[in-house]
């Protein structure tokens, strides 16, 4: 069966450290993988998109890697701040030529001051 799992339901880290979140998938071959941030009571907000032929993408303090052999994406937040506390979701397309995007289970990140 198809699954998209994010490594832990919750992750606590100290301010200033690097947070690393994992997205693992099975029985998908996505062309695109996206990362979103969601705050309570709000819709998800787009952060980064990476294509299947890209290994790494960066934006300010954020970095995403994509390993299609391992079927895994890593999402890093460097120099983390309490304001980074939120739920982070990966989403991938099912590469069926449609606009179908499926979300992973999510990780609740808490950055401790």
């Amino acid at each position, binding site marked *: 069966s198809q699954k998209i799992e994010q490594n832990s339901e919750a992750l606590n880290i100290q301010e200033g450290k690097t947070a690393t979140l994992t997205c693992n998938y099975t029985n998908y071959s996505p062309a695109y993988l996206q990362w979103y941030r969601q705050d309570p009571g709000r*819709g*998800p*907000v787009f952060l980064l998109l990476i294509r299947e032929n890209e290994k790494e993408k960066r934006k300010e303090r954020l970095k995403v890697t994509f390993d299609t052999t391992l079927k895994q994406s890593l999402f890093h937040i460097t120099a983390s701040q309490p304001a980074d506390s939120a739920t982070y979701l990966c989403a991938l397309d099912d590469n069926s030529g449609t*606009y*179908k*995007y*499926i*979300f*992973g289970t999510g990780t609740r990140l808490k950055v401790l001051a």
Partner: protein
Amino acid sequence: DTEVTQTPKHLVMGMTNKKSLKCEQHMGHRAMYWYKQKAKKPPELMFVYSYEKLSINESVPSRFSPECPNSSLLNLHLHALQPEDSALYLCASTSRRDSPLHFGNGTRLTVT
């Protein structure tokens, strides 16, 4: 503020009521989505419209009926819902498969 507007923000309805959720975007996006999100769970895909035609229905019960009257507007008609249908209903849109999804802030639905 988001570029995808959802109304109402909150809705309480009885199991025999009929109500509708509305979603609007003016970004010229050709794909629009309905997702359902329960507390502490990820968004779960319900429907996708592409160029105003229903392209994906994720085996959603018929008490949920989507409608796309034009390229900017998406509705979700609700009828005879169950208490377990209580959730945050999110609308999203995108221009291409390799572009971000733009989400509204959702309608918080409570079925009593």
